[in-house]
């Protein structure tokens, strides 16, 4: 049986477009609001990445940091985050959910407890930013046993040898980091170069769904129409911040933005 993440990619492929993945931080700016945002963008996005906010993030740029600090300041806890996901999964049009976070949050919860809770609340995949291969070998196997997709990351600095080993150990989906940057950096590499690397990965591992993330925005998203999937995160977090600053409703604004993104790649 295919897992919900693979089904989502399949569906997008049928429609001849990349899958659209969004990233928002759980609890930004409140538990209720972040849940409402998930419900609203679920109409346009194919897979939702839900960020677990952490206060010493070593790979996140300013936009996501702002969202994370806002969520932590408003008191978000790990158990609230699970609750947000399970509530979302009960909503009208839920999509697959991928948690994205830092390993300490999992480590403190206990790997087994964490995975049990993921299963119960309906989390379909995990991206652990600071648990690279081969350090993640045991944990990723544990995820697989629990039918949770452990998503390996690849970057422009990943050597060919590593690339082969990592893709071999990966599950259905892999994540290519477009450039040397924290999240939300300006795209400093040409789409052509990014796509060349993407093709290299697809050649080695044609069956795995490979998404591209970091620096993807409304402006450049249409350059990547012939890929398996695209992740937009910082631009959405930025839109939440902008809405809050202008006393507008982030739920409406973010959902408009995601709808536009979807149109641009369809």
């Amino acid at each position, binding site marked *: 049986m295919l897992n919900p993440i693979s089904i989502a990619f399949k569906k997008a492929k049928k429609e001849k477009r990349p899958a659209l993945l969004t990233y928002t931080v759980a609890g930004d700016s409140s538990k209720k609001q972040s849940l409402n945002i998930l419900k609203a963008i679920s109409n346009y996005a194919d897979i939702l990445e839900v960020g677990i906010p952490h206060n*010493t993030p070593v790979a996140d740029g300013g936009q996501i940091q702002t969202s994370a*600090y806002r969520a932590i300041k408003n008191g978000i806890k790990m158990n609230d985050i699970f609750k947000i996901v399970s509530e979302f999964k009960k909503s009208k049009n839920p999509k697959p959910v991928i948690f994205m976070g830092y390993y300490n949050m999992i480590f403190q919860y206990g790997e087994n407890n964490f995975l049990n809770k993921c299963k119960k609340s309906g989390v379909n995949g995990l991206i652990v930013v600071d648990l690279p*291969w081969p*350090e993640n070998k045991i944990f990723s196997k544990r995820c697989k046993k629990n039918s949770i997709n452990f998503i390996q990351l690849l970057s422009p600095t990943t050597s060919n040898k590593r690339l082969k080993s990592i893709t071999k150990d990966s599950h259905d989906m892999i994540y290519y980091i477009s450039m*040397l*940057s924290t999240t939300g950096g300006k795209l400093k590499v040409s789409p052509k170069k990014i796509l060349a690397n993407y093709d290299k990965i697809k050649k080695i591992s044609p069956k795995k769904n490979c998404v591209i993330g970091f620096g993807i925005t409304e402006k450049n998203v249409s350059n990547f129409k012939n890929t398996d999937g695209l992740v937009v995160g910082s631009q959405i977090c930025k839109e939440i911040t902008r809405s809050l600053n202008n006393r507008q409703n982030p739920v409406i604004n973010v959902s408009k933005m995601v709808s536009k993104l979807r149109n641009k790649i369809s």
Partner: protein
Amino acid sequence: MKLKKGIPVIDQGDRLGFWGGKFGGNFVPETLKKPIEDLEIQFNKLKNDKNFIKERDRYFKNWIGTPTRFIKLNNLTKYVDGAQIWSKVVSDANGGAHKIYNATVHCLMAKRSGKKVIIGDTGAGYAGKMLSMAAKKFGLKCKIFMGAKDIKRQQPNVKAMKENGADVIPVYSGSQTLVDAVSECMRYWVANCDTTAMCVGSTVGPAIFVRICGWSTSQISRELKVQLINEFGDVPKKLKLYNCVGGGSSSFGFWNEFMDYDKKQVEFIGVEAGGPTKSKRHAAPLTYGSKIGILHGAAQYVNQNRDGQIEETESISAGLDYPGISPLHCFLKDTKRARYTAASDEEALKAYQIVTKYENLRPSLEPSHAFSIAIKEAKRFSKDTIVIINSCGDAYKDRGILEKKLGKKYVKSN
């Protein structure tokens, strides 16, 4: 968990960089795997390369000024009326603190690998100041990340960094102290690791940085061992080495050469920052039993809440104001080779007053923590016990704080 004899502690990690199977490691984003691996290959080669060691020693001798003094504090010994009190005056080193050793080694390595820019974090400003000095010396561009709160309280060092031509980049996130500076510095490296070298300012961070720093500061104990033999004919039968511990670079360097001695002969005492007496916050994860967690790429004892968010620390001393602690010290604690305790802000200030009253020595607030515990404990030791405190920083940088807390008379004119 066991400490091995005859193998440097920095080389006792396993294949994945864990000491004792659980401290350290490489919890880093995929992007940093390659630059870290490159650095590992380079370091493993260079540390056995005679020419490199020669080059290092030449700079240590002619530029940093080795050895730093090893002196008896006669008046303090009389005041304490117990053990003999000595000090290794590491603040004699060029720049005024031990951070110069690590900075120099990192710049030498960056130069060899063809990097043009070097970045670093700083708390008290010493790591930043030294990196800016070394970068200038070796013709590298330099960027220093420093918490906005620390920039305010350690102005003399900020000024020095700027005079050396470094960009000082204020970090406004989180508590605006060292922990945030290290995060920001690592983030910058993630985005620029193809052109830029990173120097982590203490024995923290991904395993390779722990090793390079420990290897560099070990100069302190190499010198001390020679000085002890010159003074006493041998390593004394009862020797106690007191050192403050923030990230843990000076203490590790102060102890490394004596690692294989029985702890009954050479005891290591690490003094963490207990923070203000009235506050619940502290920077003493080993003393107050913090849980193991991951911070800045390494597993270590770290102040955190139940969820795993890193907790804010509080200490009068910016150099010790860090929620985590080197994996090396976690290892030394759990193998019981070293003993750890804490001194409060108030105790450190009092120790500073005592030391400056009796001796012509001005330890900065960081080593003042170590002096505090050493003075307290030395009272009950026998006269043939040799207590040595590493005075690893000079109080010049703390003028502002000292003036505010103790009044003008404690701050001399330079």
